[in-house]
Protein backbone atom coordinates (compact mmCIF):
# COMPACT_ATOMS: atom_id res chain seq x y z
CA UNK A 1 0.00 0.00 0.00
CA UNK A 2 1.33 3.41 -1.01
CA UNK A 3 2.18 5.62 1.97
CA UNK A 4 0.07 8.78 2.20
CA UNK A 5 2.16 11.96 2.09
CA UNK A 6 1.47 14.66 4.65
CA UNK A 7 2.81 18.18 4.06
CA UNK A 8 5.71 18.77 6.42
CA UNK A 9 5.58 22.54 6.17
CA UNK A 10 3.02 25.14 7.37
CA UNK A 11 2.07 27.57 4.66
CA UNK A 12 2.83 30.75 6.63
CA UNK A 13 2.03 33.59 4.26
CA UNK A 14 -1.64 33.03 3.55
CA UNK A 15 -3.24 34.85 6.46
CA UNK A 16 -2.69 36.99 9.54
CA UNK A 17 0.30 39.10 10.45
CA UNK A 18 3.51 38.39 8.60
CA UNK A 19 6.64 39.71 10.26
CA UNK A 20 9.88 40.31 8.43
CA UNK A 21 13.20 41.17 10.00
CA UNK A 22 12.69 41.49 13.78
CA UNK A 23 16.09 42.79 14.89
CA UNK A 24 18.14 40.21 16.79
CA UNK A 25 21.85 39.90 17.52
CA UNK A 26 23.59 38.07 14.72
CA UNK A 27 26.49 36.77 16.81
CA UNK A 28 26.81 34.84 20.07
CA UNK A 29 26.56 37.85 22.39
CA UNK A 30 22.98 37.87 23.77
CA UNK A 31 23.63 40.30 26.62
CA UNK A 32 21.99 43.20 24.73
CA UNK A 33 18.62 41.40 24.72
CA UNK A 34 17.82 42.72 28.21
CA UNK A 35 17.66 46.20 26.69
CA UNK A 36 15.34 45.17 23.89
CA UNK A 37 12.07 47.06 23.53
CA UNK A 38 9.04 44.92 24.37
CA UNK A 39 7.09 43.45 21.48
CA UNK A 40 3.44 44.52 21.56
CA UNK A 41 0.99 42.72 19.29
CA UNK A 42 -2.61 43.69 18.63
CA UNK A 43 -5.42 41.29 17.81
CA UNK A 44 -9.24 41.31 17.85
CA UNK A 45 -11.38 39.40 20.34
CA UNK A 46 -15.13 39.00 19.95
CA UNK A 47 -17.71 36.57 21.24
CA UNK A 48 -21.39 35.81 20.63
CA UNK A 49 -23.25 34.92 23.80
CA UNK A 50 -26.52 33.03 24.18
CA UNK A 51 -27.75 34.97 27.18
CA UNK A 52 -30.99 34.22 29.02
CA UNK A 53 -32.96 36.87 30.89
CA UNK A 54 -34.38 33.97 32.89
CA UNK A 55 -37.09 34.98 35.37
CA UNK A 56 -36.70 38.62 34.30
CA UNK A 57 -37.86 37.82 30.74
CA UNK A 58 -41.45 39.12 31.18
CA UNK A 59 -40.07 42.61 31.83
CA UNK A 60 -38.56 42.70 28.35
CA UNK A 61 -41.68 41.16 26.81
CA UNK A 62 -43.69 43.96 28.44
CA UNK A 63 -41.38 46.66 27.05
CA UNK A 64 -41.67 45.09 23.60
CA UNK A 65 -45.43 45.53 23.94
CA UNK A 66 -45.25 49.11 25.14
CA UNK A 67 -45.99 48.21 28.76
CA UNK A 68 -44.03 48.63 31.97
CA UNK A 69 -44.09 46.07 34.78
CA UNK A 70 -42.39 46.16 38.16
CA UNK A 71 -41.78 43.57 40.93
CA UNK A 72 -43.89 43.71 44.10
CA UNK A 73 -43.61 41.67 47.28
CA UNK A 74 -47.21 40.41 47.61
CA UNK A 75 -47.52 40.78 51.40
CA UNK A 76 -45.43 43.80 52.34
CA UNK A 77 -46.08 45.65 49.08
CA UNK A 78 -42.38 46.63 48.80
CA UNK A 79 -41.93 47.35 45.11
CA UNK A 80 -38.81 47.27 42.96
CA UNK A 81 -38.74 49.38 39.82
CA UNK A 82 -36.24 46.88 38.39
CA UNK A 83 -37.24 43.26 37.90
CA UNK A 84 -36.36 41.13 40.91
CA UNK A 85 -37.61 37.57 41.32
CA UNK A 86 -37.39 37.50 45.10
CA UNK A 87 -37.68 40.20 47.72
CA UNK A 88 -34.46 41.04 49.58
CA UNK A 89 -36.19 41.45 52.94
CA UNK A 90 -38.72 38.60 53.16
CA UNK A 91 -37.13 36.25 50.64
CA UNK A 92 -40.56 35.71 49.11
CA UNK A 93 -41.24 35.54 45.40
CA UNK A 94 -42.38 38.85 43.93
CA UNK A 95 -45.31 39.37 41.58
CA UNK A 96 -45.51 41.42 38.43
CA UNK A 97 -47.51 44.63 38.61
CA UNK A 98 -48.09 47.04 35.75
CA UNK A 99 -47.54 50.76 36.34
CA UNK A 100 -47.50 53.82 34.15
CA UNK A 101 -43.85 54.79 33.66
CA UNK A 102 -44.28 58.32 34.92
CA UNK A 103 -42.13 59.71 37.67
CA UNK A 104 -39.57 62.27 38.78
CA UNK A 105 -35.84 62.67 38.18
CA UNK A 106 -34.02 61.61 41.36
CA UNK A 107 -30.47 62.05 40.02
CA UNK A 108 -28.87 62.52 36.61
CA UNK A 109 -25.67 63.04 34.65
CA UNK A 110 -24.66 63.96 31.13
CA UNK A 111 -22.03 61.55 29.80
CA UNK A 112 -19.65 63.38 27.47
CA UNK A 113 -17.48 60.29 27.25
CA UNK A 114 -18.44 56.69 27.76
CA UNK A 115 -17.53 53.09 27.32
CA UNK A 116 -16.45 52.26 23.78
CA UNK A 117 -19.84 50.72 23.02
CA UNK A 118 -21.61 54.00 23.83
CA UNK A 119 -19.05 56.55 22.61
CA UNK A 120 -20.98 57.22 19.38
CA UNK A 121 -24.03 58.16 21.48
CA UNK A 122 -22.29 60.84 23.58
CA UNK A 123 -23.34 63.19 24.96
CA UNK A 124 -26.21 61.21 26.48
CA UNK A 125 -28.18 61.78 29.66
CA UNK A 126 -28.62 59.15 32.35
CA UNK A 127 -31.32 59.55 34.97
CA UNK A 128 -32.50 57.64 38.01
CA UNK A 129 -36.28 57.83 38.06
CA UNK A 130 -38.53 57.82 41.14
CA UNK A 131 -41.92 56.22 40.53
CA UNK A 132 -44.68 56.91 43.01
CA UNK A 133 -45.59 53.21 43.13
CA UNK A 134 -42.02 51.98 43.74
CA UNK A 135 -39.63 51.91 46.69
CA UNK A 136 -36.54 51.76 44.50
CA UNK A 137 -35.28 53.74 41.50
CA UNK A 138 -35.00 52.99 37.78
CA UNK A 139 -32.05 53.80 35.52
CA UNK A 140 -32.91 55.18 32.11
CA UNK A 141 -31.97 57.67 29.40
CA UNK A 142 -33.48 61.15 29.21
CA UNK A 143 -34.01 62.29 25.64
CA UNK A 144 -35.09 65.61 24.16
CA UNK A 145 -33.18 67.91 26.52
CA UNK A 146 -30.12 70.05 25.72
CA UNK A 147 -27.17 68.10 27.21
CA UNK A 148 -25.17 71.32 27.47
CA UNK A 149 -27.79 72.84 29.75
CA UNK A 150 -27.21 70.40 32.64
CA UNK A 151 -28.50 71.87 35.87
CA UNK A 152 -29.43 70.63 39.32
CA UNK A 153 -32.89 72.05 38.52
CA UNK A 154 -33.43 68.89 36.50
CA UNK A 155 -33.76 66.97 39.76
CA UNK A 156 -37.43 66.70 40.65
CA UNK A 157 -38.65 67.34 37.07
CA UNK A 158 -41.44 65.04 35.91
CA UNK A 159 -40.63 62.48 33.23
CA UNK A 160 -42.68 60.09 31.15
CA UNK A 161 -41.49 56.81 29.63
CA UNK A 162 -41.59 56.27 25.91
CA UNK A 163 -41.08 52.97 24.11
CA UNK A 164 -38.99 52.11 21.09
CA UNK A 165 -41.27 51.19 18.20
CA UNK A 166 -39.12 48.18 17.39
CA UNK A 167 -37.99 46.48 20.57
CA UNK A 168 -34.36 45.46 20.88
CA UNK A 169 -35.02 43.49 24.07
CA UNK A 170 -32.78 45.79 26.11
CA UNK A 171 -33.70 48.03 29.05
CA UNK A 172 -33.29 50.92 26.59
CA UNK A 173 -36.54 49.79 24.92
CA UNK A 174 -37.95 52.40 27.29
CA UNK A 175 -36.50 55.92 27.53
CA UNK A 176 -37.80 59.12 29.07
CA UNK A 177 -38.91 62.59 28.03
CA UNK A 178 -39.71 65.54 30.25
CA UNK A 179 -43.42 65.42 30.96
CA UNK A 180 -44.00 69.14 31.32
Amino acid sequence: MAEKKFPQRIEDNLQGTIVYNIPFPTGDDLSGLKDMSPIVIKYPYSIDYNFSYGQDSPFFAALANGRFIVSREPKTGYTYANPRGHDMYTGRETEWVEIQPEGKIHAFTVCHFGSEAFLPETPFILILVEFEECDTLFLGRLVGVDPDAASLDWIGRKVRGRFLRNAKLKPTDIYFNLAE
Partner: protein
Amino acid sequence: MRPVYVVSGGVSKFAKARPDKTFQALVKEAYDYALSDLGIEHEKFVELVDGSVASYFSDHFTRQLMAGIMVQDYLGLCPKPSHRVEGGGATGGICFQEGWKNVASGYMDICLAFGFETMSHVETWKGNEFIALASDVSFDYPVGGFYSGYYAMMVTRHMAEFGTTVEQLAAVSVKNHANATHNPYAQKARRLTVQDVRNAPMVAWPLTREDICVMSDGAACVIFASEEGLAKLEKASGRRLPRVTVAGIGRGTDAMRMADRPHQSYEDFYKFHALPVEESAEARAYYKSLWDKGFRYPGVHSFRAGRSASQQAYRNAGIQDPLKELDFIELHDAYTSSEVQTYEDMGLCRYGEGGPFAVNGKTFMPGVDYGLKLKEKPECPVNPSGGLIACGHPVGATGLMQGVFALWQLQGTIKKHFKDATLQVPNAAKGAIHSHAGTGTYVTVSILEKEK
Protein backbone atom coordinates in the same frame (compact mmCIF):
# COMPACT_ATOMS: atom_id res chain seq x y z
CA MET B 1 -8.08 35.33 66.01
CA ARG B 2 -4.43 35.85 66.90
CA PRO B 3 -2.35 39.01 66.40
CA VAL B 4 -1.13 39.65 62.86
CA TYR B 5 1.86 41.78 61.92
CA VAL B 6 2.27 43.57 58.61
CA VAL B 7 5.99 43.14 58.14
CA SER B 8 6.88 44.40 54.68
CA GLY B 9 5.51 45.55 51.35
CA GLY B 10 6.44 46.65 47.89
CA VAL B 11 4.85 48.60 45.07
CA SER B 12 5.85 48.57 41.41
CA LYS B 13 5.96 51.84 39.53
CA PHE B 14 2.37 52.54 38.43
CA ALA B 15 2.12 53.81 34.88
CA LYS B 16 -0.39 54.20 32.09
CA ALA B 17 1.31 51.25 30.43
CA ARG B 18 4.12 48.93 31.46
CA PRO B 19 4.81 47.01 28.23
CA ASP B 20 8.33 46.36 29.54
CA LYS B 21 7.04 43.59 31.81
CA THR B 22 4.37 40.89 31.90
CA PHE B 23 2.06 40.88 34.93
CA GLN B 24 4.15 38.15 36.57
CA ALA B 25 7.30 40.24 36.32
CA LEU B 26 5.43 43.35 37.55
CA VAL B 27 4.50 41.50 40.73
CA LYS B 28 8.08 40.26 41.00
CA GLU B 29 9.19 43.92 41.02
CA ALA B 30 6.99 44.63 44.07
CA TYR B 31 7.91 41.30 45.69
CA ASP B 32 11.66 41.87 45.32
CA TYR B 33 11.28 45.29 46.91
CA ALA B 34 9.38 43.85 49.88
CA LEU B 35 12.01 41.17 50.41
CA SER B 36 14.88 43.58 50.05
CA ASP B 37 13.27 45.91 52.60
CA LEU B 38 12.91 42.93 54.91
CA GLY B 39 16.55 42.01 54.35
CA ILE B 40 15.82 38.44 53.33
CA GLU B 41 16.91 36.60 50.19
CA HIS B 42 14.33 34.90 47.99
CA GLU B 43 15.55 31.37 48.73
CA LYS B 44 15.23 31.92 52.47
CA PHE B 45 11.83 33.59 52.16
CA VAL B 46 10.45 30.70 50.09
CA GLU B 47 11.62 28.38 52.84
CA LEU B 48 9.66 30.39 55.43
CA VAL B 49 6.50 31.62 53.65
CA ASP B 50 3.46 29.35 54.06
CA GLY B 51 1.41 30.51 51.09
CA SER B 52 -0.16 33.44 49.29
CA VAL B 53 -3.32 35.22 48.17
CA ALA B 54 -3.57 36.67 44.68
CA SER B 55 -5.72 39.57 43.60
CA TYR B 56 -6.61 40.92 40.20
CA PHE B 57 -9.94 42.29 39.13
CA SER B 58 -10.57 41.61 35.50
CA ASP B 59 -10.11 38.49 33.43
CA HIS B 60 -11.01 40.72 30.48
CA PHE B 61 -7.94 42.92 30.91
CA THR B 62 -5.57 39.98 31.28
CA ARG B 63 -7.42 37.78 28.74
CA GLN B 64 -5.93 35.03 30.82
CA LEU B 65 -7.84 32.95 33.33
CA MET B 66 -5.93 31.69 36.37
CA ALA B 67 -3.42 34.51 36.11
CA GLY B 68 -2.96 34.25 39.89
CA ILE B 69 -1.26 30.88 39.67
CA MET B 70 0.99 32.21 36.91
CA VAL B 71 2.36 34.74 39.39
CA GLN B 72 2.68 32.11 42.12
CA ASP B 73 4.59 29.99 39.61
CA TYR B 74 6.82 32.87 38.42
CA LEU B 75 7.69 33.89 41.97
CA GLY B 76 8.70 30.32 42.72
CA LEU B 77 6.06 29.69 45.40
CA CYS B 78 4.63 26.44 43.98
CA PRO B 79 3.47 24.05 45.46
CA LYS B 80 2.46 26.20 48.46
CA PRO B 81 -1.24 27.05 48.97
CA SER B 82 -2.76 30.05 47.20
CA HIS B 83 -6.07 31.34 45.91
CA ARG B 84 -7.29 34.32 43.95
CA VAL B 85 -9.80 36.85 45.25
CA GLU B 86 -11.94 39.21 43.19
CA GLY B 87 -14.32 41.94 44.28
CA GLY B 88 -14.25 44.77 41.75
CA GLY B 89 -12.42 47.88 42.88
CA ALA B 90 -12.10 46.41 46.37
CA THR B 91 -10.17 43.39 45.10
CA GLY B 92 -6.89 44.63 46.61
CA GLY B 93 -8.55 45.49 49.95
CA ILE B 94 -10.17 42.06 50.08
CA CYS B 95 -6.80 40.47 49.30
CA PHE B 96 -5.22 42.41 52.17
CA GLN B 97 -7.89 41.04 54.51
CA GLU B 98 -7.57 37.48 53.18
CA GLY B 99 -3.82 37.67 53.82
CA TRP B 100 -4.60 38.79 57.35
CA LYS B 101 -7.17 36.00 57.73
CA ASN B 102 -4.70 33.31 56.65
CA VAL B 103 -2.46 34.32 59.53
CA ALA B 104 -5.08 35.35 62.10
CA SER B 105 -6.85 32.00 61.74
CA GLY B 106 -3.67 30.06 62.42
CA TYR B 107 -3.62 28.55 58.92
CA MET B 108 -0.34 30.26 58.07
CA ASP B 109 2.49 31.91 60.00
CA ILE B 110 3.75 33.92 57.04
CA CYS B 111 1.55 34.89 54.10
CA LEU B 112 2.25 36.92 50.98
CA ALA B 113 -0.63 38.95 49.51
CA PHE B 114 0.04 40.12 45.96
CA GLY B 115 -2.07 41.95 43.40
CA PHE B 116 -1.79 43.45 39.96
CA GLU B 117 -3.71 44.80 36.98
CA THR B 118 -2.59 45.40 33.42
CA MET B 119 -5.23 47.78 32.09
CA SER B 120 -3.16 49.03 29.15
CA HIS B 121 -3.98 45.87 27.20
CA VAL B 122 -6.97 47.70 25.74
CA GLU B 123 -7.66 51.30 24.77
CA THR B 124 -9.05 53.57 27.50
CA TRP B 125 -12.66 53.52 26.28
CA LYS B 126 -12.65 49.77 25.88
CA GLY B 127 -11.23 49.67 29.41
CA ASN B 128 -14.20 51.72 30.58
CA GLU B 129 -16.44 49.17 28.93
CA PHE B 130 -14.72 46.30 30.74
CA ILE B 131 -15.07 48.12 34.04
CA ALA B 132 -18.74 48.84 33.31
CA LEU B 133 -19.29 45.09 32.97
CA ALA B 134 -19.01 45.24 36.76
CA SER B 135 -22.52 46.66 36.68
CA ASP B 136 -25.64 44.54 36.04
CA VAL B 137 -25.30 43.60 32.35
CA SER B 138 -29.04 43.11 31.95
CA PHE B 139 -30.22 46.41 33.39
CA ASP B 140 -27.45 48.94 34.05
CA TYR B 141 -24.75 48.32 31.48
CA PRO B 142 -26.98 48.52 28.36
CA VAL B 143 -28.41 51.91 29.37
CA GLY B 144 -24.98 53.50 29.04
CA GLY B 145 -22.54 51.47 31.10
CA PHE B 146 -19.96 53.93 32.36
CA TYR B 147 -18.77 54.10 35.93
CA SER B 148 -18.00 57.81 35.79
CA GLY B 149 -21.65 58.27 34.79
CA TYR B 150 -22.88 56.22 37.74
CA TYR B 151 -20.75 58.24 40.18
CA ALA B 152 -21.81 61.50 38.56
CA MET B 153 -25.43 60.60 39.29
CA MET B 154 -24.52 60.10 42.94
CA VAL B 155 -22.84 63.51 42.86
CA THR B 156 -25.88 65.33 41.53
CA ARG B 157 -27.97 63.78 44.27
CA HIS B 158 -25.36 64.67 46.91
CA MET B 159 -25.35 68.25 45.63
CA ALA B 160 -29.13 68.50 45.55
CA GLU B 161 -29.51 66.88 48.96
CA PHE B 162 -26.76 68.69 50.88
CA GLY B 163 -25.64 71.67 48.80
CA THR B 164 -22.22 70.14 48.06
CA THR B 165 -20.36 72.15 45.41
CA VAL B 166 -18.11 71.18 42.53
CA GLU B 167 -15.42 73.46 43.98
CA GLN B 168 -15.44 71.40 47.18
CA LEU B 169 -14.94 68.26 45.11
CA ALA B 170 -12.17 69.95 43.14
CA ALA B 171 -10.28 70.71 46.37
CA VAL B 172 -9.89 66.96 46.86
CA SER B 173 -8.27 66.72 43.43
CA VAL B 174 -5.94 69.63 44.27
CA LYS B 175 -4.98 67.94 47.56
CA ASN B 176 -4.34 64.47 46.21
CA HIS B 177 -2.45 65.58 43.10
CA ALA B 178 -0.29 67.92 45.22
CA ASN B 179 0.49 65.20 47.78
CA ALA B 180 1.61 62.99 44.92
CA THR B 181 4.30 65.46 43.88
CA HIS B 182 6.26 64.03 46.84
CA ASN B 183 5.51 60.39 46.03
CA PRO B 184 7.78 58.86 43.38
CA TYR B 185 5.40 55.92 42.94
CA ALA B 186 2.58 58.17 41.75
CA GLN B 187 1.48 58.11 38.16
CA LYS B 188 0.02 61.60 37.96
CA ALA B 189 1.66 64.11 40.29
CA ARG B 190 0.47 67.62 39.51
CA ARG B 191 0.03 71.06 40.94
CA LEU B 192 -3.52 72.05 40.15
CA THR B 193 -5.90 74.81 41.13
CA VAL B 194 -9.62 74.41 41.70
CA GLN B 195 -10.07 76.26 38.41
CA ASP B 196 -7.78 73.79 36.58
CA VAL B 197 -9.98 70.96 37.79
CA ARG B 198 -13.15 72.70 36.66
CA ASN B 199 -11.66 73.70 33.30
CA ALA B 200 -10.60 70.14 32.48
CA PRO B 201 -12.72 68.29 29.89
CA MET B 202 -16.14 67.33 31.24
CA VAL B 203 -16.45 63.54 31.46
CA ALA B 204 -19.81 63.04 33.18
CA TRP B 205 -21.44 66.20 34.48
CA PRO B 206 -20.32 67.54 36.90
CA LEU B 207 -17.16 65.38 37.08
CA THR B 208 -14.21 66.47 34.94
CA ARG B 209 -11.16 64.50 33.95
CA GLU B 210 -9.32 65.79 37.05
CA ASP B 211 -12.07 64.47 39.34
CA ILE B 212 -11.49 60.91 38.16
CA CYS B 213 -8.65 58.43 38.64
CA VAL B 214 -6.81 57.03 35.66
CA MET B 215 -6.21 53.47 34.49
CA SER B 216 -2.86 51.92 35.25
CA ASP B 217 -0.55 48.98 35.00
CA GLY B 218 0.98 48.07 38.31
CA ALA B 219 1.47 45.60 41.14
CA ALA B 220 1.84 45.60 44.91
CA CYS B 221 2.41 43.09 47.67
CA VAL B 222 2.20 42.87 51.44
CA ILE B 223 3.72 40.29 53.77
CA PHE B 224 1.84 39.24 56.93
CA ALA B 225 3.19 37.26 59.88
CA SER B 226 2.08 35.81 63.20
CA GLU B 227 4.25 36.13 66.34
CA GLU B 228 5.96 32.90 65.33
CA GLY B 229 6.28 34.05 61.71
CA LEU B 230 7.78 37.34 62.84
CA ALA B 231 10.34 35.49 64.97
CA LYS B 232 11.33 33.36 61.97
CA LEU B 233 11.68 36.43 59.72
CA GLU B 234 13.70 38.29 62.36
CA LYS B 235 16.00 35.32 62.76
CA ALA B 236 16.50 35.14 59.00
CA SER B 237 17.09 38.87 58.57
CA GLY B 238 19.17 39.19 61.71
CA ARG B 239 17.37 42.30 62.92
CA ARG B 240 14.35 43.38 64.89
CA LEU B 241 11.49 44.42 62.60
CA PRO B 242 9.19 47.38 63.35
CA ARG B 243 5.95 46.19 64.97
CA VAL B 244 2.88 47.15 62.93
CA THR B 245 -0.28 45.13 63.53
CA VAL B 246 -3.68 44.85 61.93
CA ALA B 247 -5.88 46.16 64.73
CA GLY B 248 -9.18 45.29 63.09
CA ILE B 249 -10.94 44.74 59.79
CA GLY B 250 -14.45 45.32 58.47
CA ARG B 251 -16.27 44.61 55.25
CA GLY B 252 -19.66 45.64 53.87
CA THR B 253 -21.83 45.06 50.82
CA ASP B 254 -24.75 46.64 49.01
CA ALA B 255 -27.09 46.00 46.09
CA MET B 256 -25.38 45.61 42.73
CA ARG B 257 -27.85 47.93 41.00
CA MET B 258 -27.46 51.36 42.54
CA ALA B 259 -31.17 51.95 41.87
CA ASP B 260 -32.07 49.07 44.20
CA ARG B 261 -30.48 50.59 47.29
CA PRO B 262 -32.94 51.21 50.08
CA HIS B 263 -34.15 54.56 51.37
CA GLN B 264 -34.31 53.86 55.09
CA SER B 265 -35.98 55.68 57.94
CA TYR B 266 -34.28 57.68 60.69
CA GLU B 267 -35.10 54.89 63.14
CA ASP B 268 -33.47 52.21 60.99
CA PHE B 269 -30.43 54.40 60.45
CA TYR B 270 -29.95 54.65 64.19
CA LYS B 271 -30.76 51.01 64.76
CA PHE B 272 -28.28 49.66 62.20
CA HIS B 273 -25.84 52.24 60.94
CA ALA B 274 -25.01 54.97 63.46
CA LEU B 275 -21.44 55.24 64.74
CA PRO B 276 -20.65 56.02 68.40
CA VAL B 277 -19.83 59.64 67.44
CA GLU B 278 -23.38 59.99 66.13
CA GLU B 279 -25.07 58.94 69.35
CA SER B 280 -25.11 62.38 71.00
CA ALA B 281 -28.39 64.29 71.36
CA GLU B 282 -27.00 66.98 69.12
CA ALA B 283 -26.12 64.49 66.37
CA ARG B 284 -29.54 62.89 66.66
CA ALA B 285 -31.20 66.28 66.30
CA TYR B 286 -29.04 67.00 63.25
CA TYR B 287 -30.05 63.74 61.59
CA LYS B 288 -33.70 64.19 62.54
CA SER B 289 -33.67 67.50 60.71
CA LEU B 290 -32.16 65.81 57.64
CA TRP B 291 -34.92 63.21 57.61
CA ASP B 292 -37.53 65.92 58.08
CA LYS B 293 -36.18 67.50 54.90
CA GLY B 294 -36.61 64.24 52.99
CA PHE B 295 -33.18 62.61 53.42
CA ARG B 296 -33.30 58.81 53.24
CA TYR B 297 -30.44 56.39 53.89
CA PRO B 298 -28.36 55.33 52.07
CA GLY B 299 -30.08 56.38 48.86
CA VAL B 300 -27.61 56.89 46.04
CA HIS B 301 -25.63 59.63 47.81
CA SER B 302 -24.17 57.41 50.54
CA PHE B 303 -22.45 54.04 50.77
CA ARG B 304 -24.05 51.71 53.28
CA ALA B 305 -21.29 49.16 52.56
CA GLY B 306 -18.65 51.73 53.51
CA ARG B 307 -20.45 52.54 56.73
CA SER B 308 -20.89 48.86 57.56
CA ALA B 309 -17.20 48.13 56.91
CA SER B 310 -16.19 51.13 59.04
CA GLN B 311 -18.49 50.12 61.90
CA GLN B 312 -17.00 46.62 62.09
CA ALA B 313 -13.40 47.79 61.72
CA TYR B 314 -13.83 50.47 64.40
CA ARG B 315 -15.51 48.02 66.73
CA ASN B 316 -12.72 45.47 66.24
CA ALA B 317 -10.01 48.09 66.70
CA GLY B 318 -11.74 49.86 69.60
CA ILE B 319 -12.13 53.18 67.80
CA GLN B 320 -14.81 55.59 69.04
CA ASP B 321 -14.02 58.81 67.20
CA PRO B 322 -12.17 58.07 63.95
CA LEU B 323 -11.26 61.68 63.16
CA LYS B 324 -9.47 62.04 66.48
CA GLU B 325 -8.08 58.53 66.79
CA LEU B 326 -6.85 57.85 63.26
CA ASP B 327 -3.65 59.64 62.26
CA PHE B 328 -4.23 59.18 58.53
CA ILE B 329 -6.44 57.32 56.05
CA GLU B 330 -5.63 55.97 52.62
CA LEU B 331 -9.08 55.72 51.05
CA HIS B 332 -10.50 54.74 47.70
CA ASP B 333 -10.80 58.06 45.84
CA ALA B 334 -11.64 56.71 42.40
CA TYR B 335 -13.58 59.99 42.19
CA THR B 336 -13.19 63.18 44.17
CA SER B 337 -16.85 62.76 45.00
CA SER B 338 -16.39 59.27 46.38
CA GLU B 339 -13.68 60.61 48.71
CA VAL B 340 -16.21 63.15 49.99
CA GLN B 341 -18.91 60.48 50.32
CA THR B 342 -16.43 58.26 52.14
CA TYR B 343 -15.59 60.96 54.72
CA GLU B 344 -19.22 60.61 55.76
CA ASP B 345 -19.35 56.80 55.65
CA MET B 346 -16.19 56.57 57.76
CA GLY B 347 -17.59 59.03 60.28
CA LEU B 348 -14.95 61.75 59.81
CA CYS B 349 -17.92 64.08 59.54
CA ARG B 350 -21.66 63.58 59.52
CA TYR B 351 -23.69 62.64 56.46
CA GLY B 352 -24.32 65.80 54.51
CA GLU B 353 -21.23 67.61 55.82
CA GLY B 354 -18.70 66.04 53.45
CA GLY B 355 -18.53 69.08 51.15
CA PRO B 356 -17.53 71.69 53.75
CA PHE B 357 -15.35 69.08 55.51
CA ALA B 358 -13.38 68.55 52.26
CA VAL B 359 -12.17 72.14 52.30
CA ASN B 360 -11.71 72.86 56.00
CA GLY B 361 -8.11 71.63 56.04
CA LYS B 362 -8.42 68.65 58.39
CA THR B 363 -7.72 66.08 55.66
CA PHE B 364 -4.70 67.90 54.24
CA MET B 365 -1.01 67.26 54.96
CA PRO B 366 1.07 69.63 57.01
CA GLY B 367 4.06 70.82 55.01
CA VAL B 368 2.52 70.61 51.53
CA ASP B 369 1.66 73.85 49.75
CA TYR B 370 -1.74 73.44 48.15
CA GLY B 371 -2.32 77.06 47.14
CA LEU B 372 -5.62 76.91 49.04
CA LYS B 373 -6.83 78.91 52.02
CA LEU B 374 -7.57 76.30 54.66
CA LYS B 375 -9.27 77.34 57.88
CA GLU B 376 -8.16 74.51 60.12
CA LYS B 377 -4.99 72.57 60.81
CA PRO B 378 -4.51 69.04 59.48
CA GLU B 379 -6.09 66.53 61.83
CA CYS B 380 -6.35 63.27 59.90
CA PRO B 381 -4.67 63.52 56.48
CA VAL B 382 -6.61 61.61 53.86
CA ASN B 383 -4.68 60.07 50.99
CA PRO B 384 -1.30 61.48 51.95
CA SER B 385 0.14 59.31 49.15
CA GLY B 386 -2.01 61.04 46.52
CA GLY B 387 -4.63 58.30 46.51
CA LEU B 388 -6.00 56.62 43.42
CA ILE B 389 -6.54 59.93 41.68
CA ALA B 390 -2.83 60.66 41.56
CA CYS B 391 -1.13 57.31 42.19
CA GLY B 392 -3.24 55.44 39.66
CA HIS B 393 -5.63 52.54 40.06
CA PRO B 394 -4.34 49.18 38.80
CA VAL B 395 -7.36 47.62 40.44
CA GLY B 396 -6.02 44.38 41.92
CA ALA B 397 -2.95 46.19 43.26
CA THR B 398 -4.63 49.32 44.61
CA GLY B 399 -5.85 48.09 48.00
CA LEU B 400 -2.46 46.48 48.64
CA MET B 401 -0.67 49.68 47.61
CA GLN B 402 -2.67 51.43 50.32
CA GLY B 403 -1.52 48.75 52.77
CA VAL B 404 2.12 49.31 51.83
CA PHE B 405 1.88 53.11 52.12
CA ALA B 406 0.09 52.75 55.47
CA LEU B 407 2.79 50.36 56.71
CA TRP B 408 5.54 52.81 55.75
CA GLN B 409 3.68 55.64 57.52
CA LEU B 410 3.47 53.60 60.72
CA GLN B 411 7.08 52.41 60.46
CA GLY B 412 8.08 56.06 59.99
CA THR B 413 9.98 55.04 56.84
CA ILE B 414 8.28 57.26 54.22
CA LYS B 415 11.51 59.21 53.72
CA LYS B 416 13.45 56.03 53.03
CA HIS B 417 10.95 54.77 50.45
CA PHE B 418 9.86 58.06 48.85
CA LYS B 419 13.32 59.72 49.09
CA ASP B 420 11.38 62.66 50.51
CA ALA B 421 10.05 63.07 54.07
CA THR B 422 7.28 65.53 53.19
CA LEU B 423 4.52 62.93 53.20
CA GLN B 424 5.50 61.34 56.51
CA VAL B 425 2.55 61.92 58.84
CA PRO B 426 4.14 63.12 62.10
CA ASN B 427 3.90 60.56 64.92
CA ALA B 428 1.68 58.24 62.92
CA ALA B 429 0.48 55.51 65.29
CA LYS B 430 -2.83 54.38 63.81
CA GLY B 431 -4.14 54.52 60.25
CA ALA B 432 -6.91 53.10 58.11
CA ILE B 433 -7.05 51.77 54.57
CA HIS B 434 -10.33 51.69 52.66
CA SER B 435 -11.03 49.82 49.42
CA HIS B 436 -14.26 50.15 47.47
CA ALA B 437 -15.98 48.36 44.58
CA GLY B 438 -18.75 48.98 42.09
CA THR B 439 -21.25 51.64 43.02
CA GLY B 440 -20.51 50.75 46.65
CA THR B 441 -21.09 47.00 46.44
CA TYR B 442 -18.05 45.71 48.33
CA VAL B 443 -16.14 47.93 50.75
CA THR B 444 -13.29 46.96 53.06
CA VAL B 445 -11.79 48.96 55.91
CA SER B 446 -8.66 47.75 57.70
CA ILE B 447 -7.01 49.47 60.64
CA LEU B 448 -3.23 49.30 61.06
CA GLU B 449 -1.49 50.23 64.25
CA LYS B 450 2.06 50.73 65.45
CA GLU B 451 2.61 48.51 68.48
CA LYS B 452 3.07 50.60 71.59
